[in-house]
């Protein structure tokens, strides 16, 4: 894929020929307390940034909002599917574990299925986000049209 815009491949890295079983390279982020407690994300709820309040509610540490890990998964998907992920795509995420402050989270994806559609395929990709110990925090799948 050679067509790029501002340094990013317009159609991403996945093509019609990408096989089932293909592994997506994810993105890696640290659950930084300063970001977790920013006004736009978790400031309204101290469980997302205040260790005292979090402990009082039984948490081992402040927890990141699940939507932050969904955003990480979306970033991985835009890297791999480019503009295709911004039209006619589907993202299903279940938050199965809390992301604690200072954990390092990596997103993953594996192509599970390709369903013929138009001139291309609708890809189904299993996605998840996990910490460095391999504990899954978010699991789900995405569907994206490629070459349709």
């Amino acid at each position, binding site marked *: 894929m050679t067509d790029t815009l501002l340094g990013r491949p317009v159609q991403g890295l996945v093509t019609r020929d990408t096989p089932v079983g293909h592994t997506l390279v994810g993105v890696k982020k640290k659950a930084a307390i300063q970001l977790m407690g920013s006004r736009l994300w978790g400031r309204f709820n101290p469980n997302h940034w205040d*260790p*005292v309040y979090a402990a009082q509610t039984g948490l081992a540490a402040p927890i990141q909002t699940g*939507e932050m890990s969904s955003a*990480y998964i979306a970033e991985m998907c835009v890297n791999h599917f480019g503009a295709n992920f*911004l039209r006619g795509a589907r993202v*299903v995420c279940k938050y199965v574990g809390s992301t604690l402050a200072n954990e390092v989270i990596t997103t993953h994806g594996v192509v599970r299925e390709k369903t013929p559609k138009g001139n291309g395929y609708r890809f189904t990709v299993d996605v998840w986000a996990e910490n460095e110990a391999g504990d899954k925090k978010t699991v789900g799948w995405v569907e994206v049209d490629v070459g349709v």
Partner: protein
Amino acid sequence: MTENKTLPATDALMPMTEIQVRQVRDFVDSLAEESQTYWDMVAIGDELSRELHITPELVILYADAVEDYNPWYEGWKMNTWKIPGESPFGPAVVPPLLVSHFVLSVQFDHTKPFAVGSIHTFHDSEILEPIPVGATVRITTRAIDKFIKRERRYVRHEVHVTDVTSGRLYFREVRDILSL
């Protein structure tokens, strides 16, 4: 700094002076309000709706906090400030799940105290069309189910995000909130 033998310090995770610690404690105390649980706050069929102007600055705030530096989302740039930006769809577009983040502000009635103990657990989102940076959208949420699973209480909403000018449907979602 330790406020209580059994609790972590306010500055356990980020450095602060005593003035900052006091400001944090005052702020946290100010959030304490009597509120209903989300389960009690919502009835099936409840519909809430608000408009959101997705300014270039709002997009930058969102993207910076998740460290997503894709230039396709940039309708604002330091030194230049507002710019049309560039994306595969023309001008800059909104990150794919930005509007999903703002659904929370609609499905929780913002005129009432926040329902403490609520946790977002699931979303099934359809990104139907790219949203141009600068668009004003209407986010509409409707409570479609309340259910108990493994002794936990959940409230399910369906969500529609449309352009206020053209009526174009940009985004659709089903999402669950776990309630106390």
